[in-house]
């Protein structure tokens, strides 16, 4: 088992930017299965941080703890200076408008059209967008940004996997979040569609100036989008660095990911 002392830090990261999201000593267990064993993370403003780890290493559990979908056993999660464990439901919902979450399976609402899917996050948070917000214009703008304006009246069942992922990203962007959490954004997609999604993620970051936390085990995705990578093994940060630093590492566990 790896402890905090033997975490292998391969590069120093600039601390000049302000920290927008911070996780300290996060622990989560399901019965005897200890998934997170003191995970730490700092996401800087405007940064693309990739978390890699094999299946079952706790990546999705960690990201769900971040938005309050799961309650951590211990540790602190601070998002834009708000410690999420101390927030009441109203404040948590307000904070969630600053965080976009792209689910692994897109999670579009099956019973709603694309337009209704995009309208849904606006129901309770119209005030965030100011009184000038014309919902129809916002929806069209978000769909244009992902290149799918023509799909506005389709049902999710009529969309391909790649289109669903793009619409889910548009739904995530509609409240103009400061942080976007991507849970396996390219899983289940063919290589060409994966590249399109990766390109889209880069464009989103440029256009919306978001900070992104990307969970993936797609090495190509990590290479293109990451500014920094954290390797999650046995519930702790096993290694940290840029893509090139980790790809050239001599450590067997790190090498296994970048073969």
């Amino acid at each position: 088992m790896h402890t905090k002392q033997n975490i292998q830090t391969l590069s120093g990261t600039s601390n000049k930017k302000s920290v927008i999201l911070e996780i300290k000593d996060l622990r989560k267990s399901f019965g005897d299965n200890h998934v997170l064993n003191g995970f730490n993370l700092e996401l800087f403003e405007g940064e693309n941080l990739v978390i890699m780890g094999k299946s079952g290493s706790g990546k999705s559990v960690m990201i769900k703890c971040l938005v309050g979908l799961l309650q951590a056993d211990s540790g602190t999660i601070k998002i834009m200076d708000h410690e999420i464990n101390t927030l009441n439901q109203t404040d948590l919902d307000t904070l969630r408008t600053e965080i976009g979450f792209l689910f692994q399976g897109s999670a579009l609402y099956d019973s709603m059209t694309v337009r209704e899917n995009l309208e849904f996050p606006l129901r309770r948070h119209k005030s965030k967008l100011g009184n000038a917000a014309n919902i129809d214009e916002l929806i069209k703008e978000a769909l244009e940004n992902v290149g799918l304006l023509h799909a506005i009246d389709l049902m999710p069942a009529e969309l391909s996997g790649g289109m669903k992922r793009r619409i889910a990203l548009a739904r995530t962007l509609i409240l103009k979040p400061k942080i976007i959490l991507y849970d396996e954004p390219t899983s289940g997609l063919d290589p060409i569609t994966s590249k399109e999604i990766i390109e889209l993620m880069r464009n989103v970051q440029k256009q919306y100036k978001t900070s992104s936390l990307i969970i993936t085990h797609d090495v190509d995705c990590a290479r293109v989008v990451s500014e920094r990578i954290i390797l999650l093994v046995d519930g702790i940060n096993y290694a940290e660095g840029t893509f090139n630093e980790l790809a050239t590492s001599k450590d067997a566990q790190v090498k296994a990911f970048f073969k």
Partner: protein
Amino acid sequence: MSSSSGLKSFFVEIGELTLFASRFFKEVFSRPFEVKELLKQCYHIGNRSILLVAVTGFIIGLVMTIQTRPTLEGFGAESWMPSMVSLSIIREIGPVIIALTFAGRIASGIGAELGSMRVTEQIDAMEVSGTNPFKFLVVTRIVAATLMLPLLVLLGDAIALLGSYIVENIKGEVSFVLYFNKVIKVLEFSDLLPATIKTFFFGFAIALVGCFKGYTCKKGTVGVGAAANSAVVFSSMLLFVIDFIAVFVTDIFFDL
């Protein structure tokens, strides 16, 4: 060993269902109210069940009258047909049979819908977007089913009586006015009121179990199928328990 663990899991499930129901009562009166979604669910649950209820009710009326007529004829008591059939349908057969068909359609539908939303992370997506999924999905469906089932049962009862009248008209040449005069004469407030009140509980129980099974569905498509299936079985059983309690209470207050 296995029977004791089965019993334990049964009581655990009852406990979880009770907690789920108490959460419903806590959330149903708190703002914001999802009125638009409630009306949509009333349409889905109520309006779209009308044909099913109408056909079921009509067949109940036909079959009951055809089956009972020979027995009453044996005693020369066929003039009692409208009274007997109407009392049976209004008090017991109508509410229970219609509620059972409603459970088959609604509990399984809700169980499968919410179950698939759970396993495809749509419920999580709703929560992350700042909407309370329990209020939006569960509260609206339970309230809609509780309000719609009594109306459907009243409709089904009326159509069942119409079916009964058609048989009486063909076999006994009884006129529409005579048949329904006899029905109205025999029916009392104490027949209609308890029977209608219990259908509110039937509707509540059916949707509660459907929502509970779907909302707490375990991962995977197998879980969705199991949620839909057990929602029907559990809610049908619960209907008979509620029916027993309702008859027991009615007997105390109205002296059946």
